[in-house]
């Protein structure tokens, strides 16, 4: 064997050794210091399966809550003589029982003395249970849903009553779970762009897709399986009539922390501190920026805003009008003229889209965040001032309704130089 005898050769071999040692140390350091996306092989799959399991436990909670809600609703309905009054917070008009109460009990038959004798009026319909029961049931179920730590949408089911007091709920929107970040109620602040992942499981959907009311599938209360539709659609008639925006998982990016960009011009900030728990909050980007501005102003005054009504699809409006929501307007008020006092006819919106500003994603219902729902007159005034300073215009008939960014009311108010308009 030939030895390396000269100094140059020895230098080479020592260099090789130190080089190897250096390379190993560098490899070790880079491996241990750099942050890995997943700790072990298969961790991402584990996270997806964990999210699915978590979703199953939420479905169990909803199922069990539905059971207790139904028992309580039947009890209360029987106690109230089969009548449940609607509290219509959207219009601010309570839809009271037409014959009122006598000694704290609802009146079934009203006999009024008139000059020509007695006027008899029947105020009870045997079929009213078909709309009173789902309404009460939905109220009770909402209470349960709001008490769950997860942000589950309220008023999210279309109910069908089956034989022997069986209620089946079909979800309008799927339940959503963030697989890689379980923290809910995030502060919506501007940050970098980052893609989010999505999967769906039977009965729920953990995805960034969105479904319109008309494409609803059974889930939740009924416990039935539902497959998610990855290319669900949102229609925006106000911006571009009849245009359909296709929302795909790839296009949905979290470019505002805690918020999801729905492509084009819509921002979904549901499950952030700015959106009321259980509600869905979608607005246009320009409106969202004004909400952030208003929040900043409110916070300077020691207040915090919470949005509880924003973008509404024409399908949702149609479902409200057709009696497919728990309020069952169509069944309660078969006369369309009376019904129009409580809910806007979608035909009106079709003919004049400005009448339904929520379609645009540039109208919001907002209030100050506080433990109790009721706000004092002083607080409403304070809210109006904050919103006005941020650039919003208030609808004069509703203290909570504000519009911005080129809606009909906004344009008229700006033209007149006022901050509130009818």
């Amino acid at each position: 064997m030939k030895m390396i005898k000269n100094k140059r050769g020895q230098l080479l071999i020592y260099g090789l050794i130190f080089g190897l040692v250096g390379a190993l140390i560098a490899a070790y350091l880079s491996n241990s210091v750099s942050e890995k996306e997943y700790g072990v092989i298969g961790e991402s799959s584990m996270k997806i399966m964990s999210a699915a399991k978590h979703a199953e436990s939420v479905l169990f909670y909803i199922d069990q809550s539905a059971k207790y809600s139904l028992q309580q609703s039947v009890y209360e309905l029987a106690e109230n003589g089969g009548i449940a009054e609607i509290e219509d917070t959207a219009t601010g008009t309570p839809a009271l029982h037409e014959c009122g109460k006598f000694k704290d009990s609802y009146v079934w038959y009203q006999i009024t003395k008139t000059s020509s004798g007695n006027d008899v009026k029947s105020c009870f319909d045997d079929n009213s249970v078909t709309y009173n029961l789902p309404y009460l049931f939905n109220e009770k179920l909402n209470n349960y849903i709001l008490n769950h730590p997860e942000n589950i949408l309220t008023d999210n089911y279309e109910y069908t009553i089956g034989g022997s007091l069986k209620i089946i709920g079909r979800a309008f929107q799927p339940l959503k779970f963030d697989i890689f970040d379980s923290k809910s109620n995030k502060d919506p602040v501007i940050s970098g762009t980052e893609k989010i992942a999505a999967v769906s499981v039977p009965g729920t959907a953990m995805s960034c897709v969105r479904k319109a009311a008309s494409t609803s599938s059974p889930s939740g209360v009924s416990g039935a399986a539902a497959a998610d539709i990855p290319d669900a659609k949102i229609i925006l008639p106000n911006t571009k009539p009849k245009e359909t925006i296709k929302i795909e998982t790839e296009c949905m990016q979290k470019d505002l922390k805690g918020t999801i960009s729905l492509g084009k011009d819509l921002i979904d900030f549901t499950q952030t501190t700015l959106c009321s728990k259980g509600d869905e909050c979608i607005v246009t980007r320009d409106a969202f920026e004004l909400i952030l501005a208003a929040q900043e102003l409110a916070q300077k005054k020691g207040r915090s805003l919470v949005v509880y009504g924003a973008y509404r699809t024409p399908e949702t409006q149609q479902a409200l009008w057709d009696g497919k929501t728990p309020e069952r307007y169509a069944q309660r008020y078969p006369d369309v003229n009376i019904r129009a006092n409580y809910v806007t006819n979608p035909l009106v919106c079709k003919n004049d889209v400005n009448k339904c500003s929520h379609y645009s994603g540039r109208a919001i219902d907002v209030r100050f965040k506080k433990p109790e729902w009721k706000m004092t007159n002083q607080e409403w005034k304070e809210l109006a001032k904050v919103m006005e300073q941020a650039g919003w215009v208030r609808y004069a008939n509703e203290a909570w309704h504000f519009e911005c960014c080129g809606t009909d009311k906004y344009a008229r108010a700006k033209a007149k130089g006022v901050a509130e308009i009818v």
Partner: protein
Amino acid sequence: MQSKKSQVEDWLPYLFLVIFVVIASILIFFGGNGRAIAAKEKSDEFILNMDSSQLLQNFLRTPAIENSLENAADQLNYYFLDDGQNSLNAFSAIAKPFFDKSQLESDYSSWSMTVKYPGKKDIFIESEKSRQSQIQRKEISKILVPTPIPENNMEIILFWVQTKFVAE
């Protein structure tokens, strides 16, 4: 002919190289092995959590009486509503055979359960084996269960219990 000392000096670099390669091989082997063990432990723990989560849900959905709409969760709620010992006994009577037949029960493991209800004392249910030969316990699943009072959710926690070896 070279002296012995110079012969050793000639071989020295190779000696260093061999020592280094041996040490590096040992480190890489044990390092990799350690990671594999950690990954396996993590995956075993995950599988146990997943299975126990499903097990707990299945248990809570178990009918209290055959063909009845009332399930184990309802029995527990009845207990908290009226503090009736019969409801608690009925709940235990469903829980024990259910979990005793589950994969949590083995020669060296068993189960126990804690129920937390706001404003009431926690309930602790455990298998006979857990009671007699528990070494340590680990939380494996937790579920939130509604009660007839919407503001009060109860929490049920399932534990995996390591026991002394008792052949089945």
